[in-house]
């Protein structure tokens, strides 16, 4: 990039497309490159944001508007840090992380179905009902789109937005001191998947998930599911991994619920809260025993 700045001017027609698509009619004062200039070097991006058609002034305007909330957030963070209020955990007390009785609760969740990704025909929605509970409902269909590629379909997902700090900095949940995930839900008898997203730095770890099943009773009564974190198993891109270890609880950025139980029909999951709890008697880190593979066998 610096070389380009020094030796010539380059007019990329698309900032996101790299080496291949740079227009050839750039003017170069001194011809130093014999091959196409690579304007910048990057891998896949974790966060694919849609391109916006804003001009510079609009970008600045939008940024300034964002600044107000960000500064407010930053102020809270600073005051929180100044207080240095230590975290006291009492066994049996549930620290509610997600509640749905706030007006902003709806903005921190995203419902996606395979229909949205052109993977199928399921549909789902998420809203907060009159009792101030989150409702995740939809219709699961296993009809496979006839595109010749896909062989199975049918999923609906509800994912929290990525946790962040002020000024769009990345953040993570600090759950290292807790041992259990506690959910108060009312389902319809179907089983849901709870996912804890722990994306790592390198791209092979981006899809790391710790999963466990959320069984629901069905009926008018609410249920409290208390699940040890040690029960969560590691999977990536839908495949359970051979090497299992307990979730690193300080690296969780999102939590999500998935409806993939291969049963066609409507589903409905009401969520009161999602919390975490400390049980000092629970010392297990991973519930899954490991075996030594025969010598020379590659783990695949």
């Amino acid at each position: 990039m610096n070389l380009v700045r020094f030796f010539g001017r380059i007019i990329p027609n698309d900032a996101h497309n790299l080496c291949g698509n740079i227009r050839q009619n750039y003017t170069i004062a001194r011809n130093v490159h014999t091959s196409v200039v690579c304007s910048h070097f990057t891998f896949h991006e974790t966060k694919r944001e849609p391109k916006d058609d804003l001009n510079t002034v609009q970008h600045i305007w939008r940024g300034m508007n964002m600044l107000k909330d960000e500064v407010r957030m930053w102020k809270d963070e600073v005051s929180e840090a100044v207080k240095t209020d230590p975290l006291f955990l009492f066994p049996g007390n549930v620290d509610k992380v997600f509640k749905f009785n706030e007006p902003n609760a709806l903005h921190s969740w995203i419902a996606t179905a395979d229909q949205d990704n052109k993977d199928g025909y399921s549909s789902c929605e998420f809203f907060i009902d009159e009792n101030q509970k989150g409702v995740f409902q939809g219709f699961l269909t296993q009809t496979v789109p006839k595109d010749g590629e896909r062989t199975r379909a049918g999923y609906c997902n509800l994912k929290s937005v990525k946790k962040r700090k002020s000024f769009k900095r990345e953040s993570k949940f600090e759950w290292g001191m807790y041992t259990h995930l506690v959910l108060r839900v009312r389902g319809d008898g179907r089983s849901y998947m709870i996912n804890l997203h722990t994306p790592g730095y390198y791209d092979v770890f981006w899809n790391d998930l710790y999963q466990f099943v959320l069984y629901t009773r069905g009926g008018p009564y609410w249920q409290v599911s208390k699940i040890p974190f040690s029960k969560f198993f590691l999977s990536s891109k839908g495949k359970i991994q051979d090497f299992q270890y307990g979730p690193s609880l300080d690296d969780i950025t999102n939590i999500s619920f998935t409806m993939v139980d291969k049963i066609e029909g409507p589903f409905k999951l009401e969520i009161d809260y999602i919390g975490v709890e400390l049980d000092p008697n629970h010392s297990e880190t991973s519930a899954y025993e490991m075996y030594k593979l025969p010598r020379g066998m590659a783990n695949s």
Partner: protein
Amino acid sequence: MSRVLLKFSFQFSGYIRHSSALSHTVIMTRTNLFHFPQRSFADDEKSRLPRLNEFGNVENKSKEVFLTVINGYDVREVHKRNHVEFIYGALKQMKDFGVERDLEVYKAIVNVMPKGRFVPRNFLQAEFMHFPKQQICIMHLLEQMEDNGVIPDAELGELLVNIIGERGYAVRRFMRMMYWMPKFSKLSPWPLPTEVPREPFDLAMLAVKRITSVDPSTVISVFSTRDVEDSIDDTWIISGQSPVQQELLASHNKKSPVYIEGAFRIWLRKSSVYYFVLRGDPRPPPDPVETDFDDVSSFSAGNIFRPPVSEVAVQPSVHEQEDGVFYAVCCTGSSGKDSLLSWVRLMQKTNPILGEVPILFKFSSPNRDIVTTDGKNMDGGDQSKTDSQKQDDETAGGNR
């Protein structure tokens, strides 16, 4: 055909042995090493073409017939030609024969594969997936087993080890299944039989039992609408009510109405059942007592071992939820309004208060929830909206 034989004879020309069993032609002697069945090639050439649909012409589709076809292939094809295609064909047909959950049949299919032929000789072959087409075929079979919740056993593992060796990729998949599937098969806190009953009555009984599992003292009673005078429907009612709920209902405020709400859906594996609830308005929880632990002005030594009287409150039962007090739950054979009226009348024998309070129906027809699942109607994508239907409230006089 001659080209094929030439190819064979050319390939194995160095291995010709003289055999006592003489064949009809000279060429045949050269390939005698393979112990062909003694029949001419020309007359049954057609029969040796791969049969793509071995199971298509079968009329009586059952497990026995399925196993017979597999056995027929096993006997007919000495060299197991096209066994991969045969297995894929068999996997596709399993559902039609109703054997997709049968481990024995899966074993019979795997048994078609030749033993020992695909076993790698060294670890490099093993790591680079020796005989990939065959291994992927077995992995598809294992995947179908997993989709249907069939847990493999050690015998299948032995078969697979004999076919592709203990380092085969399909064996590794088998090992994963043996590790994970038993762990999750019995995990549900509300266990169900692998096949839920098809009879609506048994299914509804299972549903009511599951719903009322919150209160172990629940009494489930089965009524018939025939016992009620001038009832239109002739059907059954499964009703669940615990003594606690009876007490709660007896203490219901007679001025506020009792609601019959439904139809709600509960899923039992792949079947869903509609249920109805008898609900009262929510009761406010006991007031939280504000106590200041740092205030020692009223401290006296005598009170240490006695809980303060003002803090004692009756623990709300599980039936007192924040969106209402649930007095009873039921499933009926017709899920119709008339059967619910009969339910109220039958409940009145044990809960006389139902004759004194106004009863309000919040009833949404379950029929509107039924949605076609073929691809045509999927484009709208508003199936989920069917749940939030209009609810037609209707008073059904309080003097029943």
